[in-house]
């Protein structure tokens, strides 16, 4: 690992000043992705600003908003979010998604903001003998035509077919979370579904956050039917593995008709994939298997495989149908 200057920010204001003052500087949260990439010499910052100890406000950094939503400070650890009583009761899909990610140790280290900022990556990104447009822009992509079992089936480009590895962000996508950020130009709020980017011709740029902007909090808007929500993750081993496909969903039905639905997919794209097409086909339709199958077909109609990952197209459809069926039976179909 290359050496670097280390400083610790005590406030958001000082963090924003510290990053503006140093060249090639990065914020350091829990470090579970950044430190690993630095050790591999893929990330080579000259300075780190440690934001893992920024004050987490009252109530351990998670508090109820006046409108009934929840605010989560960026430095709150993933495990603390997963075990928060408000989150578990009102947004079980978020608690579950976190618990399906990484390991107990990593969830204790990783921060909420850091989870959003982890790199979209694949094994060719890590392997410096391979070509990777994300690591070295313009060099090519060895995943295309290579071993691409883990790779994207939606929204990919000829420049990059890597997938975003976060589970938490898939739930945040379904819940329409708002990312609050602060930089030299002031504060702004970014909807989670505009936060991450598809690869296009610049796969090295993964978010719409400016390099000198800091995530300060995530807001979960009120969503009463999120109490009937869940996360399912399909992976190559029973635990501690990235998703082949994952589904975050919430469902509300009245008299058997779908009155509210949220659906997002993980493991299929360069960003958490909000399934708007599927949602649109379901609203107002009967909460039954035929509706769910039609919705899954609609969402995956533009999907394409790259050889080893062709199976994901069918797997995604079946997982969507299965999760929505469970939600319909669990209480969405009242």
């Amino acid at each position, binding site marked *: *690992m*290359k*050496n*670097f*200057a*280390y400083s*610790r920010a005590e406030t958001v204001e000082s963090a924003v000043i510290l990053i503006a003052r140093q060249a090639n500087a990065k914020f*350091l949260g829990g*470090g*579970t992705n950044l*430190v*690993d990439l*630095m*050790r*591999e010499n893929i990330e*080579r910052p*000259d300075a*780190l600003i*440690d934001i*893992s100890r920024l004050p987490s406000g009252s109530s351990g950094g998670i508090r109820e908003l006046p409108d009934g939503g929840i605010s989560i400070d960026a430095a709150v650890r993933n*495990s603390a979010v*997963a*075990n928060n009583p408000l989150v*578990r*009761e009102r947004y*079980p899909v978020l*608690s*579950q998604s976190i*618990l*399906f990610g*990484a*390991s*107990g*140790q*990593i969830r*204790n*280290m990783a921060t909420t903001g850091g989870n959003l900022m982890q790199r979209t990556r694949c094994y060719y990104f890590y392997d410096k003998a391979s070509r990777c447009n994300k690591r070295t822009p313009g060099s090519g992509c060895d995943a295309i035509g290579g071993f691409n079992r883990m790779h994207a089936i939606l929204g990919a480009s000829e420049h990059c077919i890597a997938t975003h590895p976060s589970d938490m962000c898939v739930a945040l996508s379904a819940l329409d979370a708002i990312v609050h950020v602060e930089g030299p130009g002031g504060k702004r709020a970014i909807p989670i579904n505009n936060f991450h980017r598809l690869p296009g011709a610049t796969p090295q740029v993964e978010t719409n956050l400016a390099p000198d902007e800091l995530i300060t909090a995530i807001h979960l808007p009120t969503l009463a039917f999120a*109490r009937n929500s869940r996360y399912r*993750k399909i992976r190559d081993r*029973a*635990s*501690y593995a990235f998703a082949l496909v994952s589904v975050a969903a919430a469902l509300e039905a009245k008299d058997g008709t779908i009155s509210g639905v949220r659906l997002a997919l993980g493991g299929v794209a360069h960003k958490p994939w909000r399934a708007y097409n599927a949602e649109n086909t379901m609203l107002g339709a009967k909460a039954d298997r035929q509706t769910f199958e039609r919705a899954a077909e609609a969402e995956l109609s533009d999907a394409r495989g790259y050889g080893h990952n062709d199976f994901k197209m069918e797997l995604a459809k079946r997982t969507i149908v299965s999760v929505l069926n469970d939600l319909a039976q669990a209480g969405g179909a009242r």
Partner: protein
Amino acid sequence: MAEVNSVIDRWETGSPSSAVEIVLQINGATRTLRIEPRVSLLDALREYLGLTGTKKGCNQGACGACTVLAGGERILSCLALAMQYEGAQITTIEGLGPDGVLDPIQAAFVEQDGFQCGYCTPGQICSAIGMIREFQDGMPSAVTPDVSADARELSDEEIKERMSGNLCRCGAYVGICDAIRKAFKSEVAQ
């Protein structure tokens, strides 16, 4: 190989050495050391403080051999920069059973054959202690059917899921599960 890696970690230069003095709280003792900011907590423990009970397996967060407790919570010391843990109460395997009396989890590992070669054992034991605390704090897991419910049982399925961040290449998992289940039951009974 682990030794070689840590020496390379320490000597690979990219910019001039800029060691700084930091104060760590390790197993109840205050330890002052001069390190570069890039030194991991794992290397600080092993290479600078001589606490070699914590093991370096993969050095990339995949195996759990380097698990220690920070403020009672289990973390991976290989992905932790030592600088980030200034002031935190760090407990390593050397800090358990300080008076020559084994911690109940350690004793259960011995009794239930919770290891073969022993390399993953310090990490398994620190992880198990942190895991039981999480369970007692009400933390659900990926196999918990209803995360909004409070009451649950530490079943074998729960133990396996919650311990999935600790690999054992000898495959002593059955003994590890037995040790954790029995230690937890006797702790609850007391």
